[in-house]
């Protein structure tokens, strides 16, 4: 990969919303509306819908101590993928790996399942923590899976 040819992602759609439950619907529906014209398979749409729900729910629920804070939701759609960014402004650090693994422990409770789902449903998942400022989750979903490399005979 030629690093010097890489450009930072520019999001075509960007919205700031209250960190409240109704924002989950708004973000999901906005993205799905823009994806309609791509005639994507149901499985792909379902994966995108679920991962957006989980990501925005996490941001709304855990992202900030204050009830009147905001979240930022952005996405960009290309011919073969969608990249989604969800940012909360709580600035809490956590270990996504820890929560994901806890979610696999029987009887532990609800914690961590969101991250587990997101990881299963999209192709790339990145977190950027700005201590005491923000937490940003970036997900990328390819519309069409990469065919596996041909195995030698």
């Amino acid at each position, binding site marked *: 990969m030629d*690093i010097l040819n890489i*450009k930072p992602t520019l999001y075509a759609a960007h919205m700031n919303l209250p960190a409240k439950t109704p924002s989950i619907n708004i973000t999901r529906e906005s993205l799905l509306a823009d994806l309609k014209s791509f005639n994507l398979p149901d499985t792909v749409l379902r994966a995108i819908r679920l991962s957006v729900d989980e990501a925005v729910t996490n941001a709304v629920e855990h992202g900030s101590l204050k009830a009147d804070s905001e979240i930022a939701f952005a996405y960009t759609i290309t011919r073969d993928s969608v990249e989604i960014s969800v940012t909360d402004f709580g600035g809490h650090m956590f270990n996504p790996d820890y929560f994901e693994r806890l979610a696999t422990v029987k009887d532990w409770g609800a914690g961590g399942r969101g991250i587990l789902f997101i*990881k299963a449903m999209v192709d790339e998942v990145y977190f950027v923590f700005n201590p005491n400022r923000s937490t940003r989750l970036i997900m990328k979903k390819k519309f069409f899976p990469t065919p596996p490399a041909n195995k030698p005979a």
Partner: protein
Amino acid sequence: MIDEELKSKGAIPDLNHSILEIWKLLAGDESIGVLLQAVVKTSEVITQARSGKIILFADSWQKFEYQFATIEELSLLKNLQAGTGAQILGIITRDGVSLELENLEAKIPDSKGVSMVSPDKSRLEEPFKLEGKIIGTLHLQDKPGGFTPNDQTFLQTFLEQVAVSIERAILRTRLNKTQNRLEGIFEAIGDGILVLNSEGRPVMANHALQRLLFPDEIPSNSALSSILPSLYNPDQDEGIQEIVLLKPHAKVISSHFVNIRDALGNVNEVILSLRNITSGREEERKFLQLSAMISRRVARWMKVLNSSHPKKRRAFFKTRRLVENLFRLTEIKSGPLRIQRLPVELLEILQENLKRFSRKFQKRGLNLVVNIHPDAENLSLSADEEFLKDALSILFMVHLRNLQPHSQVEFSQTLAEKGCVLTWRTSIKAWKELPGPASLDWNSSVESFIAAESRPFILDLPFARHILEAHKGGISLTIERDSAIFEAFIPSET
């Protein structure tokens, strides 16, 4: 300026050729040694001298980014210099460049920086300047017919022009050397280094960054383009972030940025340093997970264990408290509490707690005065009922355990904008040991325990705070004149 004699002898083509050759060398980025030899040769041709040399004195040959002698030769000369006190001279002829030890017994006559023709016109000496200082002398000998003032004038102009070009050549060589050194350092650093231009686009990256973000097993991915906008902030001079490349990399990276600004304060470039801290975080994750799982398991066991023997019973309860608090610590340390929100009736939760604690308060000789707002009946919340009950229970328990007998607690519930406030008011004198605001902070509680092991390890209040913060509420402790007031704010909706 060209000597008529030169013209008459048909020497002009040789002169032109020499001058052309030297300008070619100057333009062609040739080494200093080759240039200086060409200067001597051209001087000989210009003046028709039979021989010439430049002598560089007082170690001035070190100015040139050029190897005048091998390391062994230089070492030998320096040893001899130490013994004799003679200078090491740089000698340049048309055929070569070398270093020699000054012959103190047969010292070359020196014009001491002045342009000079010997009385018999057989020798010409012209000072050789570089960077405004005389660093040596051009010596020419044996011109047929003798050296003339024209020769001096021409050589002065020639050497001045050559000096300027040589200074530029030296500068280029030094810059190349510095650039090579910096590139070497850049690649030798184990951390990934990335330089961005003012538009946030990469202009320089080392191989360590390539390996970090684009390892062989995942040569193509969106990590850099996705995370780049979050890795720096033009409003700060520097900052740090932590990046978790959860999928597909499974790496944790610590990132540090520094903004390089121009004279007007605008960001010119951003320097990013990215360090792979995966193994450290992995260990931390393992510890947290192990600690959480073990303490959870032990807490479950403790609930079923019991003993009637008083000493054993006391030990049992102390151990149970310790394990409970250890579990709370791992919950607090792992991040925001994961709660399940469902509709709950606040009044139901309050009444349950009040019923349970009224009896306990009575048993301890404490007076609990309750004042609930009539509208509490209609107040429903979206909350995790179990955790909320825990939080309120903790607040009642803190009072139960730490107040003197015959004290009074005034508990009230009032409506606030977007939620409700639960208040526990007591007299300061009622407390055996009045908790301070630091008791709401888990960090302070841990430090307090570490500092004095005899103190109990209790994270009741920090955990209650952790629960309420997960609900977007909070807890505070204020001292108002002679009253201690705990307040818990619970939002009614999110």
